[in-house]
């Protein structure tokens, strides 16, 4: 769907993209990732010609974009950015309908499409008449996504779209994007610097450094076969799949449901309901573990729903440590009838969760191999 053929991009003598060759297949969600300055955003902006390459060719849908009017091209390629960039003077409806309007659709067609779109993300119709500033960041970015989807572009470019959102909203939007892509079969090129995000959503991860691709592979391949030291370091050792279940880091999952201690009780309850969990691990703003709260605790408390979690009296817990033996933790969870334990590193920063089922799954993988 998108081909980069020997693409070089340089500002003067400074080379940002160095003879890049990349093929994004139709229907794939490809994540471009790498340290800042690696050229991932530039690569993305080359696709909709916000930036022109110095050398080389880029083909979108088998057409060399050199020969396409950039304005025409951009209208056929969805674009979602970290700043969201909703037009503040237009209502949500007008924002969603902007590209159809640019393309001269009639009112009826626009309205029908908007209807489809809001059903796609279960957006309440009352929001249509509101202005962007009346929505939360997460809601705004949902609209940003709808705006990009409006004229059903086969390709969508996303530039750190969830980078400015809080962790909980980010996670729910990540889930949404995965679900949407499965249903709509869009080709998505997604830029992020967050490895967890990449692993979570990507069909294929393209790791870049200094304008070059270091490794491009499916997440699993990348985790089990990092091409070199740089890849290993960038992925983070705790995520690497070793095939053995020795330490907690090997068996933990990063799908932990955490809440900052300043979160209000009502939000905490909503989060538990959404995640279908009976309790939450509480962290502070630097992700240091504070303890846990349960739904009973909240229900029994006489605090108002706007009060912060920390006011309720957080229950201290002893976490699992990432380099602790998995066996030890498993034994403890069995003995104390614990379903889930947060995993922390040396600095008491929460990095994941072990559940009884995650341990069982890891053990099964060791015994029968990775079949998923």
């Amino acid at each position, binding site marked *: 769907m998108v081909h980069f053929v020997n693409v070089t991009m340089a500002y003067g003598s400074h080379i940002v993209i160095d003879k890049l060759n990349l093929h994004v297949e139709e229907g794939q969600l490809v994540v471009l990732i790498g340290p800042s300055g690696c050229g991932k955003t530039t690569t993305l902006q080359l696709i*909709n010609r*916000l930036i022109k390459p110095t050398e080389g060719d880029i083909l979108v849908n088998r057409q060399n974009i050199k020969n396409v009017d*950039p*304005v*025409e*091209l*951009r*209208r*056929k390629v*969805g*674009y979602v*950015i*970290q*700043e*969201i*960039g*909703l*037009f*503040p*003077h237009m209502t949500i409806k007008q924002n969603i309908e*902007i*590209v159809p309007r*640019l393309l001269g659709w009639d009112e009826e067609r626009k309205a029908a499409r908007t209807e489809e779109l809001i059903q796609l993300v279960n957006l309440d119709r009352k929001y249509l008449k509101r*202005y962007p*500033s*009346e929505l939360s960041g997460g809601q705004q970015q949902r609209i*940003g996504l709808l*705006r*990009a989807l409006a004229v059903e572009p086969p390709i969508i*470019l996303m530039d750190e779209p969830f980078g400015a959102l809080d962790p909980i909203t980010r996670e729910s939007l990540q889930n949404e994007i995965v679900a949407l892509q499965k249903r709509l079969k869009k080709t998505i090129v997604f830029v992020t610097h967050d490895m967890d995000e990449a692993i979570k959503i990507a069909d294929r991860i393209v790791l870049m450094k200094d304008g070059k691709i270091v490794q491009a592979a499916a997440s699993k391949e990348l985790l089990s076969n990092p091409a070199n030291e740089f890849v290993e370091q960038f992925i983070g050792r705790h995520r690497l799949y070793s095939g053995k279940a020795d330490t907690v880091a090997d068996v933990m999952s990063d799908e932990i449901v955490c809440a900052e201690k300043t979160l209000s009780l009502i939000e905490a309850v909503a989060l538990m309901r959404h995640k279908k969990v009976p309790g939450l691990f509480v962290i502070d703003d630097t992700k240091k573990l504070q303890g846990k709260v349960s739904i009973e605790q909240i229900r029994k408390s006489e605090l108002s729903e706007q009060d912060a979690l920390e006011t309720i009296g957080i229950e201290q817990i002893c976490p699992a440590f990432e380099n602790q033996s998995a066996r030890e933790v498993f034994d403890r969870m069995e003995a104390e009838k614990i379903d889930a334990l947060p995993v922390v590193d040396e600095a008491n920063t929460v990095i994941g969760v072990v559940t009884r089922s995650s341990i069982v799954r890891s053990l099964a993988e060791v015994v029968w191999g990775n079949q998923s």
Partner: protein
Amino acid sequence: MSNILPAMLSHLRITFLGVLAAVILGLPTAAFLIRHDKLRKMLFIIVDAIQTVPSLAMLTFVMLIFGLNDTTVIVAIFLYSLFPVLRNTYVGLASVDKGTIRAGKGIGMTDLQIFSMIRFPLAAPMILTGIRLSIVSALGLATTGVFIGAGGLGMLIWRGIQTRNMGMMMSGAVPVFLLAILFEYVIGLFEKQLNKRQRRSIS
């Protein structure tokens, strides 16, 4: 009493023509300056200096070219209005959030569409502020026009002062005052309305 209406109309005519000229010249110039930083800095120094010229001095300078009549006052108002119109329009147009512009470009807006659909509507409240400031101060300046022989409400005020006729003076002063309050209020209302619609976060 019968003098007031014609004087008021002539006062408004002088005020509007002056400000209108500044708007007609100022808007496209400000749009042009977005991409020309050096020129902008130079131009702003000049308009700022113009703004600094005392009103009576300005009127006499312009008078030397245009003579003792309304045109002189209109030109002076035009010169004074350049600063608020140009500055506010420029700031309004240039301070539109970069992400918003990038989003517009990214979804395939042409440069013209980015200007007409994003920059201009978002800058509209600021532009109105510039116009409001210009009109209110122009109403005052137009009264001073009487010194160089122009018409308007200043004539009534001046005659009243000279003859120590309080009523005559007030018959000129009150309309000027009310007009200033009216424009301040009405245009301010428009600005608020536009701002409310956008609810731009204060950065």
